[in-house]
């Protein structure tokens, strides 16, 4: 039987979780399970193994595909400390595809089951190596499991160009003023619009699972659009509508 499993690896309220479950249930009336990601880690060995592999898949240079080949004890300790600390997410960068590999290898069930839509909702930063020979920060990485990063939603799609111009010239007061006056044009982590945007990305995960299709849509009004700008996210994913082609 098809089912959906949501693994929560970030600090969100029960009310938010219920909203996401209700949204997914609207898409498909099926069993929906919610777990804290940390519950997967059964014992100290599993914790150490995961901490070490997380340290190994850190991205240390954005323009070098090689990951963290030599791991120091403090890096493992850092990962250990952050696996159970929901108050503070890791500040490191990780390879998204390697993370999916780790989860599949460590927990074949449920992460390799195509009948289960597994989604990890996290505050980690995931990157993927792209054709321009650089790592890029991602909001969502579709696959088994799907990885959806809240921090990625805030940081991966770019803010409007004026923001970077002010930041580049070091105009800090003007930058603060711009940020205050333009809150409607970008997202923050504690933003009331985040819930609807997350639903948009949950929809992307669902569509991938049902249709085995991870192609993005060209229509910027479609929830399946690959938003590169915050303003695009606040249109396509916030409204989470499908275009006529995908309806």
């Amino acid at each position, binding site marked *: 039987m098809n089912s959906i499993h949501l693994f929560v690896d970030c600090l969100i309220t029960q009310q938010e979780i219920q909203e996401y479950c209700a949204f997914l249930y609207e898409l498909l009336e099926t069993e929906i399970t919610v777990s804290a990601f940390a519950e997967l880690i059964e014992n100290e060995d599993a914790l150490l193994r995961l901490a070490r592999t997380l340290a190994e898949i850190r991205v*240390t240079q954005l323009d070098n595909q090689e990951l*963290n080949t030599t791991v120091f*004890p403090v890096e493992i300790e850092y990962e250990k400390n952050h696996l159970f600390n929901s108050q503070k997410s890791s500040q490191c960068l990780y390879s998204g595809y390697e993370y999916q590999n780790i989860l599949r290898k460590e927990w074949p069930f449920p992460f390799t089951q195509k009948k289960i839509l597994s989604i990890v909702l996290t505050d980690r930063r995931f990157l993927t190596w792209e054709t321009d020979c650089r790592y890029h920060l991602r909001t969502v990485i579709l696959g088994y499991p799907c990885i959806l990063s809240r921090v990625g939603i805030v940081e991966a799609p770019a803010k409007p160009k004026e923001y970077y111009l002010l930041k580049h010239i070091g105009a800090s007061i003007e930058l603060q003023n711009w940020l205050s006056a333009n809150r409607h044009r970008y997202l923050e982590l504690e933003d009331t619009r985040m819930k609807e945007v997350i639903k948009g990305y949950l929809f992307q995960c669902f569509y991938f699972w049902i249709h085995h299709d991870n192609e993005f849509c060209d229509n910027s009004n479609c929830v399946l659009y690959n938003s590169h700008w915050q303003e695009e996210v606040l249109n396509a994913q916030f409204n989470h509508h499908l275009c006529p082609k995908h309806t």
Partner: protein
Amino acid sequence: MAEKIFSQVGESEVTRAIVKSFLEQFYSFATTDVIIVGAGPSGLIAGRELAKKSVKVLIVERNNYLGGGFWIGGYLMNKVTVRSPGEKVLQELGVPCVEHVKGLWVADGPHACSKLIASACDAGVKFANMTMFDDLVLREGNRVAGVVINWTPVSALPREITCVDPVALESKLVIDCTGHDACVVRKLQERGIIKMKGFGAMWVEMSEDLVVEHTSEVHPGLIVAGMSVSTVFGLPRMGPTFGSMLLSGLKAAQVALEKLNIK
């Protein structure tokens, strides 16, 4: 005859005073508890914290002046910034600072830097300035047990006349506070003992926490602090903000105290 303002002391006594006090200190510090390489903000604060606990500390600095980049902020402008909670360290040092925007504090570079140097001196830290870190002293299992040093001007001499052997100082611990160069860890890398990852692109919001949390003993006897942490672990660089330098220095001191079994 009018009375002179200053006491009557000849040149030879002035020379003797300099030589005697320098050599007595140098003789004493041939063996120390902790040698810190680099007298920037992380090195100074680490030294100060250790000296406050009666740890014998020597800071080696290649320049004549102490303070590293703490005299000026970015772009040659002499205002230094710290993000919260870094201002608490400045306030403890008695450095006036103002909150520019929420969570970002600004202080005068010269005031902050001179207070930090004075505070380290007051705590009992001794300095070997104009002194280049040349190499490490290694013991069994490549444990770090001191540093090899030479006068900075030796490196500026023509090669034909630079056959000036360095000298070595022994210590229980060495702390690398040499900034992005990570000169001390680099010596281990040159011998194939450690592999550094190089610092990443600037990402202020992320890098400061990471630098503090990765401040640690990277090899037996060698602690890494400040921006050298970023080079060793491949963390993003942070730009002209100093909060994590101060907090990383405090953490390095804490790690050193644990290693020395001092509470």
